């Protein structure tokens, strides 16, 4: 498998597998009266294919939304029956129909997937669960397995795996294109504004700019950039006063200068600032190789650690570079916009080192 991130927002495979284990533990300790001992934990390996007695039943619960994937629960015959008995609290002499076993297994997979979604995904976007279904071996090949846990039960075994659809992360080039469009819109906005234009065209450009920035912020998970873009639009449209925009900016600046530990966890409004802090800390080391391409040799792992779960880069992946790079570019877009519109001077708020590179400086470097 190529060593790349599956999505910019998802935790790394190792972190996801940790969430899966916690989810399985919670479901088994509360809803399944049996003893399950973890005997194997694998990020890429053969997983349930190694179940000695062979897979008899494979329940899949898919999730859809900002990312798509599935939890796959594969059992040998004894394992499936044991889980069903554990859930239905039925005795060993009590006969269970195949439908009862399938239903219990599907419900177990449903709860594991739901718990995983709650623990690992809901903070990152909008996700929905699909009803449990049963598959033939090999049917889930279009998914990429991210990790598997194998449990030994009293009489059988179960493998519980998390899979992800192979959706490509936003490419650096895509983000660059998007941000270039934003830059173009900023220029257009500024030209119209300086020409004394009001209403129609100006509003249209501003709306389009807002849309572009929102899309960038959505892809980058930068909540406060979204907030800033919205605040900028509201201020320019006269829907809020300068003091409110100043307050928004000041709040952002406070976060920017706060110690990294004081910045809220990933998935909250502090995400962008975490990225910016990484950029600030790495600022002296990076090397510009193009108009908007940053090369952070040796610092990618450091950035990943500092991002603490938001993005855990894997060696050789370009995406961890692309994300802070794009975050930087969004900051530049906003900075340029505020400056061009004369807003920064009016506010008197220092924009900080995040905005140290202006557009012309980047162009000069390229």
């Amino acid at each position, binding site marked *: 498998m190529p060593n790349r991130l599956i999505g910019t927002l998802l935790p790394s495979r190792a972190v996801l597998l940790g969430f899966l284990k916690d989810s399985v533990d*919670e*479901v088994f300790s*509360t*809803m399944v009266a049996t003893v399950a001992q973890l005997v194997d934990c694998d990020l890429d390996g053969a997983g349930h294919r190694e179940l000695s007695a062979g897979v008899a039943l494979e329940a899949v619960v898919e999730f859809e939304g900002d990312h798509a994937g599935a939890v796959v629960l594969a059992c040998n015959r004894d394992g499936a029956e044991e889980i*069903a008995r554990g*859930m*239905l*609290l039925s005795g060993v002499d009590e006969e269970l129909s195949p*439908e*009862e076993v399938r*239903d*219990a297994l*599907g*419900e177990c997979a*449903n*709860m594991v*997937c*739901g*718990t995983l*979604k*709650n623990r690992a995904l*809901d903070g990152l976007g*909008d*996700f929905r*669960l699909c*009803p449990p279904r049963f598959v033939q071996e090999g049917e889930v090949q279009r998914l990429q397995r991210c990790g598997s846990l194998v449990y030994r039960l009293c009489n059988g075994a179960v493998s519980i795996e998390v899979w992800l659809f192979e959706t490509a992360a936003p490419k650096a080039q895509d983000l660059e294109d998007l941000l270039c469009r934003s830059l173009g819109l900023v220029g257009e906005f500024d030209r119209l504004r300086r020409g004394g234009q009001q209403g129609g065209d100006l509003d249209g450009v501003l709306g389009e700019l807002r849309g572009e920035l929102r899309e960038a912020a959505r892809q980058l998970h930068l909540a406060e950039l979204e907030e800033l873009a919205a605040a900028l639009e509201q201020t320019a449209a006269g829907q809020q006063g300068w003091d409110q925009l100043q307050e928004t900016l000041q709040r952002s600046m406070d976060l920017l200068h706060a110690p990294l530990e004081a910045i809220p966890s990933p998935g909250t409004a502090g995400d962008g600032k975490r990225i910016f802090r990484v950029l600030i800390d790495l600022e002296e080391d990076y090397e510009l190789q193009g108009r908007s391409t940053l090369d952070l040799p040796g610092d990618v792992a450091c950035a990943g650690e500092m991002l603490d779960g938001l993005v855990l880069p894997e060696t050789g992946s370009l995406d961890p570079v692309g994300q802070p790079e794009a975050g930087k570019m969004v900051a530049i877009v906003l900075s340029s916009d505020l400056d061009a519109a004369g807003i920064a001077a009016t506010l008197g708020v220092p924009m900080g080192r995040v905005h140290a590179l202006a557009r012309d400086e980047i162009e000069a470097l390229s």
Partner: protein
Amino acid sequence: MSGGAEQPRRALVVDDSRTMRALLRASVEALGFCTEEARDGAEAWSQLQEGPLPDLVLVDWHMPRMDGLQLIAAARAVPRFDPVRLVVVTVETAMARIAEALEAGADEYLMKPFEEGALRDKLVQLGLYSTAGDRP
């Protein structure tokens, strides 16, 4: 206890998974309820209209034919069902989903998987069970 002649409280368990129906049935019966089951919202809706009113409906969210929220919205549109306490039992625990369920008219929300005492606590909150095991 107010007296031996008092009828036990009635619960309707609505879930398309027979496993969950069995689990929930066992849980509420252990708290003194007598229970009926329905396999989806449509079946539950028929039972609500035709049978005696339950005190409590435990309803799954995602079901074929008529889902839990549709059932809740339908029930809340009929004043006769006002006394019925509606509890959504689901793995959907995102805040937006909880808000959606409560907005539709659910009285409470039970997240799966749940600890043994979680259902009892919800029923206490709804005034359907007292910690002493008696009716409030």
